[in-house]
């Protein structure tokens, strides 16, 4: 029990320590007008929805924007069992009494932070509905259990993200939820930009970065032949880091680029063929 209480105190303290991100600027290479649009949305109190495939830079973009706008950032990774209480908060027991503990969303609303709900379609419906009053002109968060109605502090912004190609058929955002957001579409960057990103993130050689991007573009052509997920920029960066640290290029591609993508023997074999044809050790 003591451990639990210590943990609670720590977590409670952590909400006061919500502060704007400092330090170095998170690296993000803009591909269009997303930075200016996001900035305008922030100023006009509009919620933003980021759509795009896994590993194309959605989370990095939000971190970058939080740094740029000098707002604290609260990230919640949504999952199957995420309930409204997980977002809003719940009563906990401490010293033989009950204490209200704010959830991440409530903390963000009180402090005027950017709240980023990652993969929001994974969350249960009741959890998604909680964000409705925050995303229209009211900008309030009603908490049933305490009877509180919290008005969002200036600077609060809700950002959600999801991957349209990956989600479960039965899971989708309700139309009434969708209409509350400004949608920004993300995709993998064009080859030259992707090379720049790999060079910045991995300190690999330029030629190798070019080869990796060419390889990824070819593998992405297999998307509709049974490959559920195509290689993302994040996967390329991971591969480039292995290569930059001395792992042989073909081996690095096999373990970091090809194997994670599929278990289908024919697909994996074809991708390995492609790696062997494109790269030399």
């Amino acid at each position, binding site marked *: 029990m003591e451990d639990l209480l210590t943990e609670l105190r720590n977590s409670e303290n952590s909400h006061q320590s919500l502060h704007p991100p400092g330090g170095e600027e998170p690296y993000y290479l803009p591909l269009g007008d997303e930075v200016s649009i996001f900035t305008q949305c922030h100023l006009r109190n509009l919620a933003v929805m980021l759509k795009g495939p896994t590993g194309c830079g959605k989370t990095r973009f939000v971190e970058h924007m939080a740094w740029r706008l000098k707002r604290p950032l609260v990230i919640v990774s949504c999952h199957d069992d995420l309930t409204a209480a997980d977002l809003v908060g719940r009563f906990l027991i401490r010293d033989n009494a009950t204490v209200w503990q704010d959830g991440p969303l409530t903390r963000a609303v009180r402090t005027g932070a950017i709240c980023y709900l990652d993969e929001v379609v994974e969350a249960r419906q009741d959890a998604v509905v909680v964000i409705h009053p925050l995303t229209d002109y009211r900008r309030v968060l009603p908490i049933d259990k305490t009877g509180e109605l919290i008005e969002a502090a200036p600077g609060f912004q809700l950002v959600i993200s999801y991957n349209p190609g990956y989600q479960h058929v039965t899971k989708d955002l309700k139309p009434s939820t969708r209409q509350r957001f400004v949608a920004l579409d993300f995709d993998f960057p064009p080859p030259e930009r992707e090379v720049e990103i790999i060079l910045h993130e991995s300190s690999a050689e330029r030629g190798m970065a070019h080869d990796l991007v060419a390889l990824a573009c070819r593998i992405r052509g297999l998307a509709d032949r049974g490959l559920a997920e195509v290689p993302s920029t994040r996967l390329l960066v991971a591969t480039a880091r292995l290569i930059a640290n001395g792992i042989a290029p073909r081996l690095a591609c096999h373990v970091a680029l090809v194997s994670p993508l599929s278990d289908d023997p024919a697909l994996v074999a074809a991708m390995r063929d492609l790696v062997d044809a*494109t790269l030399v050790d």
Partner: protein
Amino acid sequence: MAEPEELIIDAARHATAFVSRLWDHDNNASDSSCTLSVCRQRLEFFLTAVHGHEVPVRVAQPPPPPSALSRLFGRIPQHLIETCPLPANDGARVFLPMQVDLGEKNGLSTLRLFRLLALQQAQRAQRRQIQTLPADTLALDLFHLSEAVVVDHVLALHFAGLRHDLIALRRAMLQARPQLTPLNEPERVVEELYCRILKACPDVIPPPLALALKPEDSLDWAVEMGKKITIQTETTSMRYRGCVKDLWLGKMLPIPTDSQPDRYHESVRDLPEPLAKPPRSAKLPRRPEVRERKQDEDDEAQGMWMVQKDDPQQHVEDPAGLQRPADRDDDADAGDLADSLSELPEAQLISSSKAVRELLLADDPLDQRTTQVHRGKGGTHGIAYPEWDFRVSRYHKESAIVRLQPPLLGDVAWAESVLAQRPALLNQVQRRLEGLRPKRVRHHRQPDGDDLDINAYVNAFAERQAGLPPQDRLYQFTRAVRRDIAVALLIDISGSTDGWISQELRIIDVEKEALLLVYLALTKLDDPFCIYAFSGESAQNVSLWPLKNFEENDRTLVQRRIAALEPQLYTRAGAAIRHITSLLAAINSRYRLLILLSDGKPNDVDHYEGRYGVEDMRQAVAEARLQAIHPFCITVDRHAPHYLARVFGARHYAVLRQAETLPVVLADVLRRLIRR
């Protein structure tokens, strides 16, 4: 009675066919561990990734054997006669030999060789925009050489990993080039150029060749060079006959035209009659090329007849001798026919609705369907679903048509009598499914939850006061155990369900009983479910009888429909599964279950049998899985494990040892799947 000459000729024909097959068998028994059929899918994926679009890989057909006359009088020199299939492309597809081998000493494994040849041909196919090629053999060969060099150059630049393989292939081909002695002057010039190319590195273009950015440049160069060679060697007045083509150069096939087979119209009395015997089948060693029909090929008007005036008339039944011996002979060996057909360089393609007598199976099947199917048997409008052709790894051009038939209504008393006769069975089925009714459950003593669990807290407090270790499970939450599930039952009522499994029960009777009992049990669960029966004949008439839609709730009506089920025709399972998949996909449930009750392998009147049927069913099941539907199969076919494991996956099918247990097993399967 057969004449003695006929008997001798027949015996000689059979003997020759037997010996030649024996010879082929011994000679073709080389290592078959890495043939094209093993790695074709892998190569297709590889080419798709490289080119961004699908590039089908097909089996290259061996060249037709030269006839005795062409050998005697033809002007084809010995060294130019092709003996084995060569890689080729027709602008869209890549053709590779079934087996390739360069030997270990060249350091190029079979798989790497296949990969390289496929990539070369696909790259050359991509550059083939020129429709009209030079008619002159010399210019054509030079054009072909120039294109091959440019493609190798491009590959060496973009696929650094292939450079060594390219060099190894060129070296191996160089060793097998012909001697210069039997060649004439212009052939020698081309052969020297050929060898110079093979000696060079792939990223270097040896002079007098130049880097042709577009195929037109290659063509210009080839025409120019051809003229030069002709002028140089004019004194010898020798004609250029061609150069020896090998794995590296391959062949350039004409770009295919999208022509349909000519329809052969039968008169009404010729309409298909059921065959007494199943068609004979044999392997076709080589498929003739499809030939376009010429304008005046089949004259409508009859010409002159040549009447044999000798007495007596020997062949009364066929005075004009228009029938092949095999046409008359129902017992003719299909292997002989296959051998004869494979010797033809090309043949015209005809589609007919007549019953098939012989099936000759080639490595590289045709794209078009040659069986005409009579429309109009199903009165209702159909829904078209694609059908998977495993032989070419893609969907068939012509789709299967599903026709929804109005279900017949049977006797009301049937259901009552079944229920009266088998109360124990109904009880068993209901008990198995009873525990699945949805309810709201409160989960106590949770480490995390929406509310405090006061009881847990009081206990924890008391225990703490008593000095016991602290408890951290102090919360509770309430969740409705809503399964959110939709179930579709698909019942095979093909002709084979007419089989008797006991003194008084046929398979269809057991299926009907099982359906009735499970239907009654499922209605109590409030989960949406539907029941469909399927059968049909040919791709045009896949019949589906809706016994219960997702919305329907009329118990008597459904019972009467089940009562009316009787064995029908064939089992084209793929189309039926696709239709049910589309119905399930429209239902907004979290877990969707498709249960197929079957009694054997899928089969139909046409080619839909054996591996074709199984592969189409496998594809239909894979499509269902992609749409988050869980397929499961219950079958009474004891041989099912051989193919169902591939179709549905391990643990996704059940084989009934005793068909009578179907109702209970179905209930068990439902309970297991719903609980999951």
